[in-house]
Every structure is written in structure tokens, then in C-alpha cells.
């Protein structure tokens, strides 16, 4: 392997590097010249309202759709080097995409047969924790069990990047919790990178290291969770100080138990502390505040 190839994929380099990434469907702009980098060993949440361009971005990264601009994933071009890329990238796109006729044992045999980085032992170990039987067909499984199978297959692959597009859509809370717990405990390490989109922000908030908010094809926020904790602050303000708080141009305000909660972006926290009690905003609150007026 030559040095150039080694450089582009060394751990320090970005797993994903996008410059001027754009995609149009007719007159609709799905992605509007976005730039972003995703470093190794991160868990990045790509959050946005419906139709914001999340899936378009993921499809571009996975080489499933055409795009304009520059995009490099693990140093490869997703358009022309998809097959090589897929040795290093796994994805679970939406639930229930496993073919309905496939048996559990066939799924394992097939992936073991064609994927050089698949470990049958690991996969069987994951499946041992579930109720799945080798002879069962996907069509006999519940939605939650299908995701368990898909996750077991994917977690047994030693990939550098895992892309999850609404992986837990339609699952009950037990399966959802288990899904992210398995990912965090049994899969994720500093060698791996996870890129996830979901509408259930509250559930993945605590596992994310980075957050990307996307709206109308543009990135609204692209920061690490630490940066977000420093930048954004919620203050619970009594009625007497409301005007003073509004003067600081909050992103959002909402009433709660006779008090008003203001969300501020980049205001000195000492100054905010004078107005009332400080809180770290939840990603969901931040999302609602940032995306105000999306569907209006």
C-alpha cells in the first residue's frame, strides 16, 4: 500500500470529509453546498426535521445516490469505489429491510461467505441473547427481532463506519434501549465511528459525541456535545426579569409553572446566572428552538 493511501485513512484523518456537497431533486434542494467532517471514534447524531436532507446525506456517503461536490469516505469515493467502501462501512437503513424469505441461518452463512470482516462467532454470541432460531424466516419475526438480527449481523462486522438511518423506528422502548445499549457496550470503540439519524433524539442524546442539525439542506449546528454545552444555556427566569432576558435575544422562550424558560446561544453564563437558574438544554429542546418555523 502506498503512502498516499495510508495517509487518507490514518486514524487521525477524518472518516468522512464533505466539501460543497449538494443534491437537487428537480427544483427541490435537498442538500445545499454543505461542508462537514466526521472524525474517527465519534458518535455523530444527524438530526433534522422530515425532508431536511438527512437521508440524502447518508445516501451520498453510502454511494447510493448521485451528488455534486466533493465527498470522501475512508479516503474512498463512494460513487466509484462503493464495493471497496462497503468492506469498511456498514449500514442499517430504516427497519425491516432484511428480505422476508431469508432464514436466520442463511443470513449468517451468506454474510460470513461474502464479507471478509465478518465474525460468525461474534454474531452467534449476539444472537444467543435473543429468542431467534436459525430456521426462522425473517417474515416470521417481529419487527424488533428483525432489528436484533440485523444488528447482530452488523456488529459482527469489523467496520470503521456504521451508518444508522432511523434504526429503531417503530420499535418499542425495550428494543430501542437494548439496541443502543448493545451498540455502546459491545460494538463501539475508538476505532469505530457511528453516524446516526433518528427522530427519537432524547434516547440517543447521552451517547452522542457530536451533533449535526440539518434544516432545508443546510447545516444549522455542527459541534461536539462539549461545545454545545458551553454555547447553549437555558435559564429559568421569574416574571420580574423577563424583559431583561428578552433583551439578550434568546433563541426561544417557553412558559413553565409560572416561570419562563429562555434558551440562549453564546451568552456568557455568569451574566445569565443573574437572571435565574441555569440548565443544560436537552437536545430535543435545542432542536425545537432551532427548527422553529420549519413547516410554517
Amino acid at each position, binding site marked *: 500500500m502506498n503512502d498516499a493511501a495510508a495517509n487518507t485513512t490514518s486514524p487521525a484523518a477524518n472518516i468522512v470529509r464533505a466539501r460543497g456537497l449538494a443534491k437537487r431533486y428537480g427544483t427541490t434542494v435537498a442538500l445545499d453546498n454543505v461542508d462537514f467532517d466526521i472524525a474517527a471514534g465519534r458518535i455523530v447524531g444527524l438530526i433534522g426535521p422530515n425532508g431536511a436532507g438527512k437521508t440524502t446525506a447518508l445516501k451520498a456517503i453510502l454511494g447510493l445516490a448521485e451528488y455534486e461536490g466533493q465527498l470522501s469516505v475512508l479516503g474512498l469515493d463512494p460513487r466509484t469505489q462503493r464495493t471497496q467502501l462497503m468492506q469498511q462501512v456498514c449500514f442499517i437503513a430504516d427497519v425491516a429491510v432484511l*428480505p422476508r424469505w431469508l432464514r436466520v441461518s442463511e443470513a449468517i452463512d451468506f454474510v460470513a461467505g461474502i464479507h471478509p470482516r465478518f465474525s460468525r462467532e461474534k454474531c452467534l454470541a449476539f444472537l444467543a441473547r435473543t429468542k431467534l432460531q436459525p430456521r426462522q424466516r425473517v417474515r416470521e419475526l417481529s419487527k424488533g427481532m428483525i432489528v436484533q438480527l440485523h444488528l447482530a449481523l452488523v456488529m459482527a462486522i469489523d467496520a470503521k463506519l456504521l451508518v444508522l438511518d432511523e434504526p429503531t423506528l417503530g420499535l418499542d422502548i425495550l428494543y430501542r434501549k437494548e439496541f443502543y445499549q448493545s451498540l455502546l457496550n459491545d460494538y463501539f470503540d475508538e476505532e469505530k465511528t457511528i453516524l446516526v439519524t433518528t427522530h427519537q433524539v432524547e434516547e440517543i442524546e447521552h451517547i452522542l459525541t457530536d451533533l449535526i442539525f440539518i434544516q432545508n439542506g443546510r447545516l444549522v449546528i455542527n459541534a461536539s456535545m462539549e461545545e454545545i454545552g458551553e454555547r447553549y444555556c437555558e435559564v429559568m427566569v421569574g416574571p420580574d426579569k423577563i424583559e431583561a432576558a428578552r433583551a439578550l435575544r434568546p433563541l426561544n422562550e417557553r412558559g413553565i409553572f409560572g416561570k419562563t424558560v429562555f434558551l440562549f446561544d453564546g451568552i456568557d453564563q455568569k451574566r445569565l446566572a443573574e437572571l435565574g437558574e441555569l440548565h443544560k438544554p436537552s437536545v430535543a429542546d435545542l432542536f425545537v428552538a432551532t427548527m422553529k418555523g420549519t413547516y410554517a
Partner: protein
Amino acid sequence: MNTQIGTARSNPTQTFAWLLKREYWEHRGGFFWGPMIAGGVMIVIAMLTLIIAEATAARHGISINGMNLDAISRNMTADQVRIFNSGVTAALMGISVPVMVTLFFVVFFYLLGALYDDRRDRSVLFWKSLPISDLDTVLSKVATAVVVAPLFAIAATIVLHIVFLCLISVYAAFHGVNPLPLLWNPVPLVSMWIKLVCMIPLNALWALPTVGWLLLCSSFARSKPFLWAVALPVGFGLMVGFTQLLRQLSIPDSWYWKNIVARILFGVFPGGWFNIGNGKLWTAGSGDDFNFSLSRLDLVNSLLNWNQILNALGSLDLWLGAIAGVGLIAAAVYFRRRRTEAYS
């Protein structure tokens, strides 16, 4: 140097074998059970026929006991044996026709769904999450259609032949006739089976335009690939017929139906190349006399004749079609690469 992309490589041959296995898993009902059931139906029909024949014979007091086939066979000349063998071969080929028709329908609809069904149920996203190139995926479907499915059909045909011969033998033995020397002559049987297998490459070459066209529709259509595959060429043909476009170029309309429509829709019928050799097959069936004339036996046997096969291999039609088929398959790969959606 630290671990890099490509430290582990998949083995291309192994990957392709798994792709073929996947097609079999998904379609074993059509590839395996389809021809077997068609053969089974023929056996049931043969049994019923024998039972009815027996009952009828008994009712009318006809006895075929005492007919000494043994003695007849010993006294036959070499030429007569050849004719008898031709008759057996023709009969066996005849009862295999339903198996081949089944194979045609199975392969036709397999190809139409091959690159469409997984887009409709979105499992294409799972297959595309694995390190398999779109070229390999499409080629595995081509190979399944022209090699794997015919092999299963031939296996079913051989089983059908053996069961049928057993049935006839038991019937003959029941009437005190030893069937072994004539019916179970291994030379024509085995040579027929070997030729069936040897014809797979020729059938495959002949089928390429159909394989390519159906796969292209399957990978291109966002919905209803069957309509694309059938309505488009037929509609175009009707339009050309009305506007007399081809006739103005002094090409008869039948040329379009025979060399375009038939080639892109019916090419997967086994032995479809046969009429390009001497064109006898389609005229031979018009005679009403029930005598198995020598020429008719020869006709069936000529389907299995090496000269006939070599003739077909030398025809321009075959190779032009094959080239067009490769182009259509390339277009199917192109759309497989770009299209992951379908309307359900």
C-alpha cells in the same frame, strides 16, 4: 504500516458462489419444485392413461398378453433398433415439454423480478450494504437464469424419464413382456441427457437478448416491470404496423415480431434457436396423420443432433442477439447501480 483498507479481501469466486446460492434460497420453489411438479403431473397423466387403457382393453376383451417383445427385439435389424430408439427418445422428449414450459415461465418471471422485487420491499438496501458489486449481482442473476435453473429442469427431466420408463416397464412386465433390452438401452438415454446438458451454453447464448431485456426492465422500472417488458415492444410493434414505418423501409412487419419481439421475450424457452437451423419444427406439426413417420422422429431427434447444434452456433442471428443481450445486461447493471427505489 497500520491496518488499512483492504487487509482482508473477499474471494471473488467464493462471493459469486454465495450469490448463486442466495438466488437458489430465494427461488427454490420455482427452480426446484416447479419442474419437479410439472414432471409429477406428467407421471400422473401417464399412469391414468395406462389405467384407462387397461380398463378399456379389459372391457373389450382385448389381450395384449403373449406379445413377445423379447423375441421381436432379438430379431430386429440394426436399422429397426435405431428407429425404435428414436421413437423412445421422441416420446421421452415429448413428455418433457411441460417441464421446459415450466422452466420458461419460472425463468421469465424470475428475471422480471430479479432486480425489482428487492427494490419494492427495500431489502435492496441490505444487499447494497454488503461488499458486492452491482456487476456481480446482475451476473449472478444471469447465471442463475441460464445455467442454474436449466440444470434443475434437466435434473427433473431425467428423473421424469426414469420414472416414466419404470412405469412403462412395470406395465410391460405385468403383461409378461421383458422391457429391459429395448426400453433400457443406456446408449440413447445417456446420450440424450448429455446433449440436454451440452445444449445449456447454446440455449444461454440464444436467451441473452431476453435475459438482458427482462433484467433491464427489472432494474429500470419504478413499478410494473411486466408492463414495461411486454407492453413496450408490443405497443411499438402495433404502432409501427399502423404507420407502416418498417414497410416503407421495405422490411416486413413480421421481421420485427420474429427478430425483435420474440427474441427479447421468448428467448429463454429452451431450444428456441431450433427453427433457425432448417425451420422444420413449426411446419412439421401440421400433418394430421397419427403415424409416427420416420421424418417426424428424425425431426425430434434432429433437435438433439450435433449438426443442428453446430448450425445454430454458426448463425448470425444467434451472435447478433447475444451482442445485443450483453448491451442490455450492461444497461441493467447501470440502472442497478443508480436505482434503489420502487413504488410498491
